[in-house]
């Protein structure tokens, strides 16, 4: 009771600003930053000019000044080794917190004291933060501010705006054209587990963009990063708390021209689906749980009971598409609670969207007369209703001025309910026409908890530590695939005998979790910006995965002719499966999709940061990493097969930053990194892919890939918030793992092998520029663009176990990626942004000879976002996505293997705070 009361009190405190008493003083909080690299400066003296009031900055350069008399004040910031700075024009209001960050330049760069206004100082702080992102490595980022001006509702859409980044299937990230195996994803620095059963990636569409502070994409390796970094490391940074207590509400409503209000193919839903909680209603019936049980059912009653235990849902329905909707609420601030100054942010978002693949076509080829022609093809529609729920609770506090503690928690959950319907002639049915119906429900959940500590002692010693635990779960319960066939031309589509694929139900469930602990120590030898530093640290991470998969096929040759055209729901309503009726049989399709995997990763590193000559900064070191992976596959006979990969690697890296001028710098880096096989790929057991449905065989002989990386980047910062950069990169992959098709005399299958080597070269160009600098009338316009040109080549090697074209780019690598945006800022913070993005034609999958590669055609996407402030506290947003309704197309020579259109989307939203 008392606890409940205190909770209510707390809530009241949070939501009713200033209700308790009316204070007579205000506060100033902020950070002191190094202008050169954005790093926090500790032990800097902050003083309110004309008073004796002052404090020293603590961990991360943070400071808080309390009891400031309301009015306009100036701050004087001083630190040995840096030029002092006075910031004027800070307006302090009683009972409120004012945030003011201040950047200091090293005394060698700037000797004289400077005086700047508070407004101007914000620009130079921005610049410092820009620099921070690329201080050690080569980092690109998309920030909350940029996301807010775009129509990007989730992290997967937002990250596409980062240079060199492409997103496949709407969720998996390719950086510089390298596949998902070369990208690792973390949240606030701690690795996120992968919820995908056959690939290792974190589907970024799980994260609502309103929870994000930024998405940082590191493209060059430093020893304090994870060694399996290889292509890039994506770090999702969740939002930080605002200084002032803020409550934000947002809501939006949207429509898709091809779905909303139109009759579209729809999967029947269950309770709880709206909240991403429909899996329990689709759980695997107990009668089917044991793999061997179905095969061992002997009596007809048992077989019928097993069949009847399935949910009697097979056929997609046609219903009018619902509009898209989303809302969010967040509360954040910084308040003294229990004697500690506690920063906090709690956020909850929910979205329900209807995606459509209309004009859906799919085709398979056959080689005829030296070129591929269509062997079989289908046309129809696919549609997915998705719910996404995101929750965040971050809090942090300073204990004294030397200790900063942070606790970050996040939870996201999504549910995709997909229906697909298509009709066309099928090779396996001797050219007869078939009707394919698929119902699919996928639920994903990610939770992450981190406790981090940051301790600084006399400005020279910094210790950071973190304890993190994260878990994911992906459930695909009760997928149904039904094939009806046309027995006579123009006749009805009807139940078809015998083929194992006519009625299939799949249940899969994957859990992965990890926990990690990390400790870092940084010793800055001496004072000021020129002081060299040594950094050592260690990491231990333990990951476990448990994947479960059951697939059943129902077949019957005994459905009477007259009843075959009935809907499956009628055939399975019990009329043929009651008592000892002998009509349907049920088979296990495969049990080998089940496995457990464990990985123990321990790592240590040593690196130094050595500024010299006033212009140079050399960062060098090495990381030692040992990974011990064990994959334990369950076999159809109940046995288990164990595969193992245990490697210890030394991964050196060296980076040189050269400050060419106040506004330009050059960075060069060279490193070695690695990529390890996905767990499942190590198990040499044939199994059916859960996601792709293909027969797949792992390879116990796979070794990890070693990657040598070289980067060179020139950057110019013409004005605060502006950047022009040009980078080149080169990578060499030693024994990269490629997914390949293998032909047999019968069913082809997919496998993995180590190719000999691959090379990846590219140029990245990025610019963010206010047009006012060129034409005064265009002062309100800002242009940004990033373009990456890439080239890669894979050498398969003598083994040639692949039948794919021997000389080709790596899979997924596009020759170019372009993002262009134009923003017009309005009065009172309004804006309008036009965005263009496109990816050059890339290999979706390598063709098996004699077929050409399957290419994903370029899709030109144009989006428009308008932000209109209505009042001081309310903003109206208008987002239009996919204005060209560009088609998605996979082509193989003259054949369109797969194609569809997703329709134009229009969303109207409001935001209030």
């Amino acid at each position, binding site marked *: 009771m008392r606890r409940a009361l205190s909770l209510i009190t707390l809530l009241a405190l949070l939501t009713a600003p200033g209700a308790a008493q009316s204070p007579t003083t205000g506060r100033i909080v902020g950070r002191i930053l190094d202008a050169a690299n954005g790093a926090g400066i500790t032990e800097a003296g902050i003083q309110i000019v004309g008073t004796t009031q002052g404090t020293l900055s603590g961990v991360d350069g943070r400071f808080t000044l309390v009891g400031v008399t309301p009015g306009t004040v100036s701050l004087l910031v001083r630190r040995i080794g840096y030029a002092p700075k006075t910031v004027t024009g800070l307006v302090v209001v009683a009972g409120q917190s004012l945030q003011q960050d201040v950047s200091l330049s090293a005394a060698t760069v700037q000797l004289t004291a400077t005086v700047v206004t508070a407004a101007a100082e914000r620009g130079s702080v921005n610049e410092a933060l820009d620099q921070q992102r690329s201080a050690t490595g080569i980092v690109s980022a998309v920030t909350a501010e940029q996301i807010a001006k775009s129509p990007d509702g989730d992290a997967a859409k937002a990250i596409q705006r980062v240079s060199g980044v492409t997103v496949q299937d709407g969720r998996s990230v390719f950086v510089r054209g390298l596949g998902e195996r070369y990208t690792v994803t973390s949240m606030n620095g701690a690795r996120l587990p992968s919820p995908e059963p056959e690939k290792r990636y974190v589907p970024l569409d799980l994260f609502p963009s309103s929870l994000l502070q930024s998405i940082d994409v590191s493209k060059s390796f430093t020893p304090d990063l994870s060694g399996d970094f290889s292509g890039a490391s994506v770090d999702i940074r969740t939002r930080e708390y605002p200084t002032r207590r803020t409550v934000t509400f947002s809501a939006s409503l949207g429509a898709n021209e091809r779905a909303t209000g139109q009759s579209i193919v729809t999967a029947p839903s269950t309770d709880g689906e709206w909240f991403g909680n429909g899996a329990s209603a689709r759980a695997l019936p107990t009668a089917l749980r044991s793999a*061997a049980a179905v*095969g*061992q*059912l*002997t009596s007809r009653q048992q077989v019928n009971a097993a069949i009847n235990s399935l949910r009697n849902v097979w056929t997609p329905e046609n219903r009018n598409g619902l509009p898209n909707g989303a809302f969010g609420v967040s509360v954040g601030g910084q308040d003294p609670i229990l004697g500690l100054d506690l920063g906090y942010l709690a956020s909850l978002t929910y979205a329900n969207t209807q995606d459509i693949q209309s004009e859906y076509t799919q085709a*398979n080829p056959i*080689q*005829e*007369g030296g070129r591929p022609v269509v062997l079989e093809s289908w046309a129809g529609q696919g549609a997915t209703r998705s719910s996404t729920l995101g929750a965040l609770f971050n809090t942090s506090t300073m204990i004294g001025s030397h200790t900063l503690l942070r606790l970050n928690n996040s939870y996201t959950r999504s549910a995709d309910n997909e229906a697909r319907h298509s009709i066309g*002639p099928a090779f396996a*049915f*001797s*050219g*007869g*026409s078939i009707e394919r119906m698929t119902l699919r429900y996928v639920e994903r959940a990610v939770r992450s908890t981190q406790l981090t500590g940051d301790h600084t002692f006399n400005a020279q010693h910094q210790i950071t530590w973190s304890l993190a635990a994260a878990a994911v779960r992906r459930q695909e319960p009760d997928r149904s695939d039904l094939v009806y*066939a*046309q*027995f006579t*031309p123009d006749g009805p589509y009807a139940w*078809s*005998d*015998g*083929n*194992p694929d006519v009625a299939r139900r799949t249940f899969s469930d994957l859990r992965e979790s990890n926990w990690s602990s990390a400790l870092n120590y940084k010793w800055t030898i001496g004072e000021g910006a020129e002081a060299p530093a040594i950094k050592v640290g260690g990491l231990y991470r333990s990951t476990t995965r448990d994947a479960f998969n059951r697939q059943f*096929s129902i077949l019957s*040759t005994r459905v009477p002719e007259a009843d075959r055209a009935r809907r499956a729901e009628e055939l399975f309503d019990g009329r043929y499966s009651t008592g000892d009726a002998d009509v349907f049989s049920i088979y*296990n*399709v*495969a*049990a*080998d999709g089940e496995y457990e995997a464990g990985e123990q990763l321990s790592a240590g590193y040593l690196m130094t940061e050595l500024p010299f000559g006033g212009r140079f900064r050399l960062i060098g070191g090495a990381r030692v990493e040992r990974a011990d992976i064990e994959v334990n*596959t369950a*076999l*159809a*006979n*109940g*046995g288990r*097969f164990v595969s193992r990969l245990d490697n210890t690697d030394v991964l050196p890296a060296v980076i040189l930053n050269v400050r060419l001028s106040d506004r330009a710098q050059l960075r060069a880096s060279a490193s070695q990194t690695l990529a390890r096989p996905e767990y499942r790929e190590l198990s*040499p*057991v*044939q*199994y*059916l892919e859960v996601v792709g449905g293909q*027969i797949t065989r792992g390879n116990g002989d796979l070794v990890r890939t070693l990657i040598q990386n070289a980067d060179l980047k020139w950057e110019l910062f013409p004005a605060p918030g502006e950047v022009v950069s040009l980078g080149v990169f080169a990578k060499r992959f030693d024994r990269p793992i490629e997914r390949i*098709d*293998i*032909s*047999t*005399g*019968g*069913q*082809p*299958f997919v496998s993995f092998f180590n190719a000999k080597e691959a090379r990846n070269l590219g140029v990245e160009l990025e610019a963010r520029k206010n047009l006012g600098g060129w034409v005064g009338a265009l002062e309100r316009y800002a242009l940004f663009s990033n373009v990456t040109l890439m080239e890669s080549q894979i050498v398969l090697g003598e083994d040639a*176990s*692949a*039948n794919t074209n021997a000389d080709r780019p790596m899979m997924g690598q596009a020759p170019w990626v372009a993002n262009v945006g134009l923003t017009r800022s309005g009065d009172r913070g309004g804006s309008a942004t036009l965005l263009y993005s496109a990816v050059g034609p890339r290999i979706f999958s390598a063709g*098996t*000879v*004699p*077929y050409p590669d399957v290419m994903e055609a370029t899709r030109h996407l144009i989006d428009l976002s308008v932000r209109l402030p209505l009042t001081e506290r309310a903003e109206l947003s208008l987002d239009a996505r996919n204005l060209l309704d560009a088609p998605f197309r996979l082509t193989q020579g003259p054949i369109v293997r797969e194609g569809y259109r997703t329709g134009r989307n229009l969303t109207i939203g409001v935001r209030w705070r």
Partner: protein
Amino acid sequence: MRFLSSLRVIMPALLVLVGACADGVTAPDPLAAPATLTATTQGPRSVQLSWAAVAGAETYEIDRATGAGSFATVATVTTATYTDTALVAETSYRFRVRAIRGTEQGPYSTEATALTGDRPVVQVTADITTNTTWTSTNVYQLTKVISVANGATLTIQAGTKIIGGTITTGQAPPVTALMVLRGSRLNAVGTATQPIVFTSSAAAGARAPGDWGGIILVGNARSNRTGRTVVEGPAPADTVSWNGGNLDNDNSGEIVYTRVEFAGAAAILNVELNSYSLYAVGSNTRFEYNQAIRGLDDMFEWFGGTVDGRYLVSYEAGDDHFDMAEGYRGRLQYLIALQTGPRVTPRAGNPGALSAEQNGFEIDGCGSASGTCALGFSSEPYTMPVVANFTILGPGAGVLPVRSGGDGGVGMLLRRGTGGTWMNGVVARWPESGLSMFDSTATFARLAADSLDVFNTLLANNGRAFDVAGATNRFGTADKFTDANITTSTAAAHLLFTSIPDSSVAVANGASLDWRPATGSALRSGGTGTTLPGKTGTRVNNFFGGSLAGTTFLGAIAPDAAAPWYAGWTTYFRN
């Protein structure tokens, strides 16, 4: 103990002494029949006999008969005990004994019967990389997919038994098979009385289709695939590429008088092995007198290659009886396929399943739509077999799956760009159709090029004889065969033969069937005679030391043949 055994020596001596004493007094009594003859199995090769000594006997004559056969004397001994050590394992023997005195022969004892013990089971755990012989005195148990590699020859003696089963120990894959790699050979030459049997490790009566994998031969002849194309099946078969060969007269050994029973295991659904998988096997390989029984996938499948074959019997397939593809160019004569009901089903829990498309012949050009057929179905070399004197008997209606397109059970399915010649055969009792030709572009091109011929054949009692006009992608309509001497009939198919059960009657376990044409059967005539039409005559030379002869009869055996070629070594087991 020692006292007792010395008594055993002394007592008969005393008896002889007593007899000798009596001799002087009266004429000796006639010899009695040895009493209480007992036969005790001592192992796989020996049986110990003992009986009560007969007064006055000087020696004993021991007769033995195998099974129900006739007796022959095998030994003469002086004591009332004998151990026969020259026996064959797992065989029933009858014994009798009589006493001998001078020229006097006493009456025979009553018969005693003994079944010799099981042969010792030798576990085969390692691949065979040096020349190796498996002897008929042992049973060889395959414990995984055993490869004969490194140019080694595996010789298997006549009468040897090889078993394989589903592995339950958690090994991957849980499948056993024998795989002979390119450059290695399998010399498995049985005899009509001592065939080499590859079968399930389960006890007779408890065997099921798909219990083990089968025999895989990988030769070095040409196929029409390009790139790397591997054996369909579990590891390590799925790492063995079988195309790219260039030696059409390659030799993979001799496979003669063998049976492969209950094979076709799968590691996962739809990836089953065939009973006999012949990948790119060359023409110097000898392949005759072989039977496949109740395999879960195809019974005989040729993937490219040129190996000839004759005297092949297929009983109860889970998929096709005779499957040829990927540029197979061998000649085949005297083939029997029998499918009855109910449907073949694997053991409960087996990941394999029967095909939805079960046919007698299923012949493809380049069969894959998924790649490595450089010109699609019409890749070269074309599939061009010569098949003569085939008896392909289906299960009749109501057994096989019926599907869209109506290909559920076709006697001869010729498709995907195949050529070839079929003659002097009979295709009967197939529920869908007797003869069907698919792929109006690729396969029709072979027909138009006069490379695809079916003639002098009886299509009897099938759902329909030919394709119907207008069916999707099918063109094997009756009008294509107007001059081909193809006759059709609706009479009951089993009556064409001397002793074959009706489709509604299950074939008994261990049955011996008589495939000779019945009196007055339509099979007795209608054949080509020795003069073969068209291009065929040039394609039948060098067939088992002669040439493939045309016959006046149809089907796999001549009317009134004195010793049917299938007698003795073939058998029909359901489990």
